[in-house]
C-alpha cells in the first residue's frame, strides 16, 4: 500500500493546490504534501530493508535497491525544496513578480512534477516510464515560463521543443526494444523491465543496439548530455529558483536512471562494450564542453547549470566504464551532486533575490552583510568542486581511481575537465563572496536551513557512508556490472 501512497499523495496535492494554490496556506501545504510523500517513501524503504526487492501490482511496479535510494533522494530533495520554496516564493509573490493564478499553477505543477518523477522511478513498465518522463516535460515547461518574460518564454520553448524531440527518439527506442522482446516472448509483458531483464540474453543484438542509440539520445537530452544540452542552462536560469533546484536535483538523475536501466538490458544482449563506450563518449564530451563553457558564464544560475551538465557527464562516464567500483562511485556521485546542486541553487536563488540581479559581476562581498548566504554559497561551491572532506570529493576520487585501472586513456581528459571547472567556479564564487559589499542586508532572514542540511549530508557522505546505503550501492553496482 505504501507504494501507492507515494504516488497518490503528490497527485492529490496537485489537485488540491490546483484549487487552492494561491491561498496563504498553500506555501505550507505544498511543503506538507512533500513531507508526507517523504514519509510514505520512508515506510516503503523500511519494507524493502526488511523484505528485499518487491515486485507488485501485476509486476507493473518494481522496487529494488536501485530505485529505492533514488525514490528517497527524490522525495527528500522535493521536500527540502518545498521548504525553501515557501520562503522564496512568498517573497516573489509579495514583490509582485508572480500573480495569484500563476502561484496556483506553480504549486500544482510542483506536486505533479514530483508525481511524474516518482512514477518514472517506481514503474516497471518502460512504456509508463516514457509517459512519466514526457509528463515531467509538460509539467515543468509551464514552470520555466512562469515569469512570462521574453527570456523565460524562449527558455521554455527551447526546453519544450528539444526535450520533445529527445523524448520522441526515446519512444522510438522503446518501440524497438518492445519489438525485440516481441519476437522472443510475444505481445505480453514485453514492456516490463524485469521480464526484459530475464530474457535479455535472447534479445536480438542488432535491434537492441539501434534501440539503445535512440534511447541514449532521447533520455540523454533530459540528462543534459552534450550536444543535446542546449535547453538546460536556459531552463535553469529563467525559471523560478526552486524549479532550477528540482530540475538539477531530480530530473537529471531520473533520466540518467532510465539510461542505466536500459544499459543493463543492452549489455545483456550485446556482449560487447558498445553501450558503455557510447555512454563514456557522451559523458566525456559533456564534461569537457561544459567545463570550458563555465568560464564564459556571467549569470549565477547559468553557471551552476553548466556545472550540472559537467557532473552528469561525469556520472554518465562512470556508468559507462562499468565495473563495481565505477558504478558505486557513479551512484554516490548522483546522490551528492543532487544534494549539493540543489543547495547551491537555494543559496544563489536568495542571493539573486536580494541583489536584484543574477549577474555575477554585480554581486560582491556577500559575507560582509549576509554571512549566512555567503557561507552557504561558498561551502556549496567548495563541495561541488570536490574539496575534501565533502562527499563529491569521495565520489570523484573513486571515479578517477576506477578510470586509472579501467580506462587510463581518459584520465588526462577527466583531470583537464575537472581542473578547468574548478578554476572557473572558484574564481567566480570568490568574487561574489569576498570583498566590499554592494548587496543590501537581507530584511528578513533567508531560508538557509535546507541549504545547510544538504551540505551537512554531503559532508557526512564524505566522511561516513551509512552501511545500508553502501550495501544498496554495492548491490546495484553488481546488477549494473555485466
Amino acid at each position, binding site marked *: 500500500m505504501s507504494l501507492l501512497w507515494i504516488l497518490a499523495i503528490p497527485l492529490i496535492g496537485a489537485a488540491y493546490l490546483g484549487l487552492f494554490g494561491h491561498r496563504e496556506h498553500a506555501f505550507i501545504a505544498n511543503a506538507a504534501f512533500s513531507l508526507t510523500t517523504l514519509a510514505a517513501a520512508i515506510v516503503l524503504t523500511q519494507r524493502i530493508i526488511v523484505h528485499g526487492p518487491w515486485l507488485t501490482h501485476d509486476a507493473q511496479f518494481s522496487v529494488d535497491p536501485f530505485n529505492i535510494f533514488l525514490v528517497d533522494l527524490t522525495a527528500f530533495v522535493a521536500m527540502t525544496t518545498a521548504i525553501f520554496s515557501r520562503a522564496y516564493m512568498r517573497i516573489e509573490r509579495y514583490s509582485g513578480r508572480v500573480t495569484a493564478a500563476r502561484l496556483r499553477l506553480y504549486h500544482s505543477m510542483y506536486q505533479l512534477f514530483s508525481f511524474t518523477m516518482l512514477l518514472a522511478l517506481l514503474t516497471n*513498465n518502460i*512504456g*509508463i516510464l*516514457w*509517459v512519466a518522463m*514526457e*509528463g515531467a516535460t*509538460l509539467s515543468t*515547461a*509551464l514552470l520555466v*515560463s512562469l515569469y*512570462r*518574460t*521574453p*527570456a523565460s*518564454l*524562449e*527558455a*521554455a*520553448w527551447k526546453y*519544450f*521543443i528539444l526535450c*520533445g*524531440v529527445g523524448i*520522441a527518439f526515446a*519512444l*522510438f527506442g522503446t*518501440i*524497438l526494444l*518492445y*519489438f*525485440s522482446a*516481441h*519476437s522472443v516472448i510475444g*505481445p505480453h509483458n*514485453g*514492456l516490463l523491465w524485469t521480464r526484459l531483464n530475464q530474457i535479455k540474453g535472447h534479445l*536480438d543484438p*542488432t*535491434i537492441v543496439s*539501434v534501440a539503445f542509440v535512440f534511447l541514449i539520445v532521447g533520455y540523454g537530452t533530459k540528462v543534459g548530455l552534450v550536444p543535446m544540452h542546449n535547453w538546460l*542552462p*536556459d531552463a535553469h536560469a529563467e525559471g523560478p529558483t526552486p524549479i532550477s533546484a528540482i530540475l538539477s536535483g531530480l530530473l537529471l538523475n531520473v533520466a540518467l536512471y532510465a539510461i542505466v536501466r536500459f544499459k543493463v538490458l543492452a549489455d545483456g544482449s550485446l556482449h560487447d562494450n558498445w553501450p558503455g563506450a557510447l555512454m563514456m563518449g557522451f559523458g566525456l564530451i559533456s564534461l569537457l564542453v561544459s567545463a570550458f*563553457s563555465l568560464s*564564459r558564464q556571467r549569470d549565477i544560475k547559468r553557471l551552476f547549470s553548466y556545472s550540472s551538465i559537467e557532473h552528469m557527464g561525469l556520472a554518465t562516464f562512470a556508468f559507462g566504464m562499468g565495473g563495481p567500483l565505477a558504478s558505486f562511485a557513479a551512484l554516490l556521485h548522483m546522490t551528492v551532486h543532487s544534494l549539493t546542486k540543489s543547495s547551491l541553487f537555494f543559496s544563489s536563488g536568495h542571493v539573486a533575490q536580494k541583489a536584484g540581479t543574477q549577474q555575477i559581476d554585480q554581486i560582491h562581498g556577500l559575507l560582509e552583510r549576509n554571512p549566512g548566504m555567503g557561507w552557504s554559497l561558498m561551502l556549496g561551491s567548495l563541495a561541488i568542486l570536490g574539496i575534501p572532506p565533502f562527499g563529491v570529493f569521495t565520489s570523484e576520487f573513486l571515479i578517477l581511481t576506477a578510470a586509472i585501472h579501467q580506462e587510463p586513456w581518459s584520465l588526462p581528459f577527466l583531470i583537464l575537465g575537472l581542473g578547468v571547472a574548478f578554476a572557473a567556479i572558484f574564481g567566480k564564487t570568490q568574487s561574489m563572496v569576498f570583498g566590499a559589499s554592494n548587496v543590501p542586508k537581507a530584511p528578513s532572514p533567508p531560508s538557509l536551513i535546507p541549504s545547510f542540511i544538504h551540505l551537512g549530508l554531503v559532508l557526512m557522505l564524505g566522511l561516513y557512508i551509512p552501511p545500508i546505503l553502501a550495501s544498496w550501492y554495492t548491490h546495484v553496482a553488481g546488477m549494473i556490472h555485466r
Partner: protein
Amino acid sequence: MPLFAQAINMLAALFLLVAFAMLSQRRLANLINLYALQGLILGLSIGVVAYGTDQPKLYFSAGLNLILKVIAVPWLLRRLVRKLQVQWDRETILYIPTIMLLGLGLVIFAFNASLPLSELAGTINHNTLGIALASVLLSSLMMILRATAISQVIGFLALENGLIFAATSVTYGMPMVIELGIALDVIVGVFILGVFFFHIREQFDSLELNYLDRHED
C-alpha cells in the same frame, strides 16, 4: 502478396509522400491539412492491418488516431492559426531543393538502417519500418529548419505520427495503456503550446523564433 498487404505498402508510400510535402509546404493552412491527411493515412493503415490480421484491439487504436489526428488536433491548430492571424511561414532557412536533397539523404539512411531490423519482424507490414523511420527523421528535419513556432509544433506532431506508424509496423502497435498515454501527452502538449503561443505573441509580437535568439551559448 495479398491485396491488403499491398494496400498497407501503398498507404506507407503515401505517408512518406505527405511527410515530404510537409517539408516543402510554407502555407500554414496547407500544412495543417497535410497533417490531417497524414493522420488519416495512419488511421487507415492501422485499420487495414487490423482487418488483415484480425485484431479487434487495433480497430480501437485506429479510431483513436483518426479522432485525435484528423479531427481534434487539426481543429485546435486551425483555431490557433485563425486567432493568431498567421498564414505563412517565413522563407525557410535553406533553399527548398537543398532541403529536399537533405531529406532524400535521410530517407536513404533510414531505409538502409531499417533493412536488417525489419527482416526480423514477423508482421505483415514489417517493410514499412523504413518508411516510419524516414518520416521520423524528416519531421525532425522540418523542426530544425522552420522558423515559425507553429510549423515546429506541426513537425513535432508529425514526428509522433511517424512513431506510431513505426510501432504498428514492427509489433502491431504498443499495448493500449501506452497508446492512451501517448495520446494524452499529445493533446496536453498541444494545449500547453496554445497557451505558449499567446504569450510569445504578447511578448514578441511575432511567432518567429529568430527574434528569440538572445542567448547564444
